[in-house]
């Protein structure tokens, strides 16, 4: 009697132990999560298979080799309607990357200007920068893009009355025209000379930096050697017969001939996103500079650093550490945000592939996977590379 009760108690406590055993419990929870995920995946996939069977669209990426049959309004790589959907995908990727690269570069430069202006001692300048930031970051980007496209760039005069700068650059309601370079035969030599010059310049800078660190003075051979490098490149360029010329756009009839051309939608998307992101980059730069301890500036002044050198050697290296991580995030955001150009019909990836191609083929799953795959790869690559660089900068503190 007593024994059996003890046994019952023991089994009860064993059960209790099992319930409160944290490792068992965590395994059970994980098992449950896996089960639910698998169940949901099975549910979704079986539905997809059923639906696709009803629509008679078997899953597969074979369609990328079939002819697209539609034209893309602007492309940097050769494309015509007889090419395949795979080519459309590439055109979209190249356009997206070019647009985002340009935006990243210009908005970073403009953002630094805005950020420094916000810290200006001049009240008018600081307030101007402040309201610039407040205005542009509190209005949705899409509205700004559409505004620049429809209100500003589409109402520009026709090609005959276009705005010209030095008769080289022309802006009108069709787009922006600029001279395009022509590389002639001997350009290979010039190119080699230019590359050599750049390598020499990098070596020179390293050497001069090392010299400055050991002696405390700038290296006196720096500027003469720099002049020598420039002279070398120039001489090679002239000796090889100035192999670079420019084709200047010329008005013929109702449009421009020759030169390069970017459409209005590109210009509008570029301007809108550059301004929009320059506001956020400006805030990042300001926060980064303000994060530097005031004592650093005072110490630099106390040991007699001139203002420019204080900025160059004290402020910027420290601010860069605080600015770079959020700046990387903003650059990634820009790559993703460039997809908003779809709203004004610029042929970037989402527009040519997720809209036109998807409407034509109806292959939702494959196309969504391909587009998202591209953005994921782009994000992961950029963040990996820049994080590597970031780590190098941050390590110098030790």
């Amino acid at each position: 009697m007593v024994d059996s009760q003890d046994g019952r108690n023991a089994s009860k406590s064993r059960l209790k132990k099992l319930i409160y055993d944290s490792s068992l419990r965590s395994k059970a929870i994980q098992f449950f999560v896996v089960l639910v995920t698998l169940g949901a995946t099975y549910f979704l996939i079986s539905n997809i298979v059923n639906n696709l069977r009803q629509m008679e669209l078997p899953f597969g990426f074979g369609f990328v080799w079939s002819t697209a049959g539609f034209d893309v309004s602007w492309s940097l790589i050769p494309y015509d309607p007889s090419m395949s959907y795979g080519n459309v995908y590439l055109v979209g990727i190249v356009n997206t990357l070019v647009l985002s690269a340009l935006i990243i570069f210009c908005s970073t430069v403009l953002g630094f200007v805005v950020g420094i202006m916000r810290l200006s001692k001049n009240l008018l300048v600081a307030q101007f920068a402040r309201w610039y930031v407040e205005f542009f970051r509190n209005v949705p980007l899409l509205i700004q893009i559409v505004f620049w496209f429809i209100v500003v760039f589409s109402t520009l005069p026709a090609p005959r009355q276009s705005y010209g700068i030095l008769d080289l650059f022309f802006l009108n309601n069709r787009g922006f025209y600029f001279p395009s370079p022509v590389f002639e035969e001997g350009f290979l030599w010039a190119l080699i000379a230019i590359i050599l010059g750049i390598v020499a310049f990098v070596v020179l800078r390293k050497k001069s930096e090392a010299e400055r660190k050991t002696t405390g003075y700038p290296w006196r051979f720096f500027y003469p050697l720099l002049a020598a490098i420039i002279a070398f490149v120039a001489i090679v360029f002239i000796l090889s017969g100035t192999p670079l010329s420019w084709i200047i756009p010329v008005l013929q009839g109702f449009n421009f001939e020759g030169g390069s051309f970017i459409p209005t939608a590109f210009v509008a998307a570029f301007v809108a996103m550059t301004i929009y992101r320059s506001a956020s980059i400006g805030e990042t730069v300001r926060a980064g500079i303000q994060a530097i301890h005031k004592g650093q500036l005072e110490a630099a002044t106390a040991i007699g650093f001139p203002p420019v050198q204080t900025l160059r050697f004290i402020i910027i290296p420290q601010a860069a550490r605080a600015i770079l991580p959020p700046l990387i995030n903003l650059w990634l955001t820009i790559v993703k945000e460039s997809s908003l150009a779809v709203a004004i019909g610029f042929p970037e990836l989402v527009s040519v592939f997720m809209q036109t191609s998807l409407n034509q083929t109806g292959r939702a799953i494959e196309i969504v996977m391909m587009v998202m795959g591209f953005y994921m790869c782009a994000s992961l690559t950029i963040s990996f590379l820049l994080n590597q660089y970031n780590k190098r900068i941050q390590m110098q503190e030790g």
Partner: protein
Amino acid sequence: MDEQTTAKTELLKFVPKPDRPPIVISHGIAGWLKKHLFGGFWNTLLTIAVFTLLYLLIKPFLDWAVINAVWSAANRRECMTVSPDGACWAGVIRWFNNLIYGRYPDLLQWRVNLGFGIGIIWALPLALKRLKGKLQIGVAGVVLYPFVAAYIFLGGERGDFHYLVFCLGLAYLILLYIDVALVHTRGKKLSQVFDRYLEPIFGKRSAVASFILIMALITVLCLYIFRGVELEYVSIEFWGGLFLTVIISGFSITMALPIGIMLALGRRSTMPVLRWFSIATIELVRSVPMITVLFMSVTMMPLFFPNTMDLNKLAQVIIAVCVFAGAYMAETVRGGLQSIPKGQFDAAMSIGLGYWQTMFLIILPQALRAMIPNIVTSFISLFKDTTLVSIIGLFDIMLMARNISIDKNWFGLHSEPLVAISVLFFVFCYGMSQYSQRLERKLNTSR
């Protein structure tokens, strides 16, 4: 000897001190101007340059938007004849109702106001200091309010379950306001007033029992009062304008918070399966643009479900935005969790609290408090990003504004509607960001 005398005479010789520099004006208007605007040559130049730029920017805009503007006209042609180079605000004013309510029928727009009014009334008691149990009010609001609002916005035959939840929501709201009144007059909630009569029956649980009883009573009352009332049905296709923008962003941000908390806890969990699942979800969603998620929701999501299931575009979009906002919120929450010192976890563990108790009683209340400014910031960006739904054809405020230009009376009226909604967004977002900054300062000082 000789040297000493010369030195002495030189010491005694009178040398006047150098003149003091003239007094620099450093006070009054002139001093202020000099300090902030005209100190030095370059500074003055900069001031003049910025001033000129401002003049060149603002003068033409004011001429266009205010001085030459037309405020009332029947159509765009009339605007053009009255003032060819001024803004035609008449079109925006004529369409203002549509910008706010979309194509919701004019006579039924009071329902939209009522629905949002109930939402505001529900949220107001959260600002009261003496009321306890705000978490419960918040959770009940998040769970019940969408049903109440949907019942009012949609109308038509909604089925018994929806009707029941609608009445439950109303009952909760009524009880909430009775409680507010009682707390301020007698210092007790209604359920606390009655629980001593129930104590003999339910013992310790009498408070909960009395709460449930009172709720049930008011719910039945509501069910009885509203039983014959049937609102006219307004299909989702007619929803639009600012109304739709607020619904999408508001619903998504409230749903994003629980999703984000779960994902963030999963990411910090010690269980590898949970952790990798959360990391994969967060990173996957965060690495793609929102527009692709929206396109996915309208093209791919119908394939996910059996085709007998009726999914409308709004539901698809809201699901997509919720997931998107949830992944971003997870990172915000993670930031908040990381700001909590490890001692808090240790202390909670040492007094014998389990995982969920530690999280919900100790860690999350502190983390959420620290995160409020960031949550407001995410809400602002979500509110702005909601304009993207216009690309996939939902009639939000952006698409409504674009549609003014294809109305035959106002054909080609592009810039005025865009400027108008820009100003609207600016006022909303700037106000919220100022609020979050004030909150941040307050939270910082109270530490």
